[in-house]
């Protein structure tokens, strides 16, 4: 295959636990919070990678979860100015609350600015987009599955890439739409298709419901453009989208998937 298979930083390296400090919390929606974290010694990341977060209770009990990086990946980007405040040791995660969950409510509600948190990464060299790759890129995200795709969009902008990008983003209701303003601002440059599965904004004239073959066929780069396709979200969403894309004639080899959890919109 092509450049996507040769990450620019694919050397064997260990991933020790690092200590980050929460520097900002921004509510994206009533149930999703972006956490900006300063991580001294952070080595940068490729767009699409994630970190493992570890929480430890006073008596030593601890648990871990994975969260995608929302911030741009700076690894292998030539000419990115060494501006640590903008993109050196600062990363961003966006966490969607899972009701009754062990970790996501803690991260979105309890973790305060100034608190320390353990994490390690970046992890994963498969669900990644290389900014030097000029091929078209089709992004398809459901719910918080938009997070690593946002990193790819931000990386594209930071890198000044001209690779054609299209995005299909599916959420339940307008109140669940993360990064709404930033996506709006991208509108001229990236073709964005919105899917509302439960309720659309007042002004919406299109259908409300799950992604189907007709929508994917209309919204996505056609198979003969051989776009890289990144599909991320809850398992049933990813299964349905990836299967439909294969039915529509997309090459399975060009579809990369990341599954976040058991249920979804």
């Amino acid at each position, binding site marked *: 295959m092509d450049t996507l298979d040769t990450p620019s930083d694919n050397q064997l390296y260990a991933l020790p636990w690092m200590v980050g400090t929460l520097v900002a919390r921004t509510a994206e929606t009533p149930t999703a919070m972006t956490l900006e974290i300063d991580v001294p010694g952070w080595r940068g990341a490729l767009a699409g990678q994630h970190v493992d977060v570890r929480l430890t209770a006073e008596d030593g009990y601890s648990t871990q979860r994975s969260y995608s990086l929302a911030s741009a990946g700076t690894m292998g980007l030539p000419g990115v100015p060494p501006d640590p405040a903008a993109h050196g040791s600062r990363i961003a995660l966006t966490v969607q609350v899972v009701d009754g969950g*062990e970790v996501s409510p*803690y991260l979105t509600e309890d973790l305060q600015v100034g608190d320390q948190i353990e994490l390690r990464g970046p992890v994963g060299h498969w669900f990644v987009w290389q900014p030097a790759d000029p091929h078209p890129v089709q992004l398809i995200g459901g719910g918080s599955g938009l997070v690593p795709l946002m990193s790819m969009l931000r990386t594209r902008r930071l890198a000044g890439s001209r690779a054609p990008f299209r995005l299909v983003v599916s959420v339940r209701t307008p109140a669940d739409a993360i990064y709404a303003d930033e996506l709006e601002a991208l509108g001229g440059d990236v073709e964005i298709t919105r899917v509302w599965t439960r309720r659309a904004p007042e002004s919406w004239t299109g259908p409300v419901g799950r992604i189907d073959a007709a929508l994917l066929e209309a919204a996505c780069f056609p198979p003969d453009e051989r776009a890289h396709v990144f599909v991320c979200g809850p398992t049933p969403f990813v299964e349905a989208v990836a*299967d439909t894309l294969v039915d529509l004639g997309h090459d*399975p080899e060009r579809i990369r998937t990341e599954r976040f959890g058991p249920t979804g919109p």
Partner: protein
Amino acid sequence: MAIISRGFRGKRDVDPRIPPGQYLERGFPVLSAGPTPRADLSTWTFSITAGGAPRASWTWSELTHLPHDDIVKDIHCVTKWSKLDSAWRGISLDTLLDGVEVAPEEQYAMAHCDGGYTTNVPLADLRGGKAWIAYQYDGAPLPPEHGGPARLLIPHLYFWKSAKWVRSLDLMTEDTWGFWERLGYHAYGDPWKEQRYWGD
């Protein structure tokens, strides 16, 4: 010394059967790198090869008529979930390897799967009642998204080693890395030692 997360208590579904850094999951999440491949059982075969050369091969009917095991095991995914007492039916790799000539220097194997996925396992981990070709889950045919028609089942290693959609095992004289192993994951993957990533 770990950083204490102020005010964090956790859910404490603690069970000595859950390895470090894992949590108990009652559902059965799916992890795979791409779309779910589709198999045609009328042409499906499972083979054992060595350096790519055939040593043995079974059709779907031949495989599923071999003596099977019913297996109840805990499984541990590198994405942090563990599932206790998962119930499978499959053919022990001891049964399959017994009829195959294996040279003493062939100490490693690479699983090859539909969709191009590969994973490497030492032969010792495939023998001694530790590994199966599984084709039923919870009393029903293994669903495609969970690796059907058949997947490797090596419950004592992280679950990515239990390669979905498996089609062959290639015996090797040297340990070479498979798909996730080349992409940052550990070459062996013992959940009790938390061997998740390179260098763990």
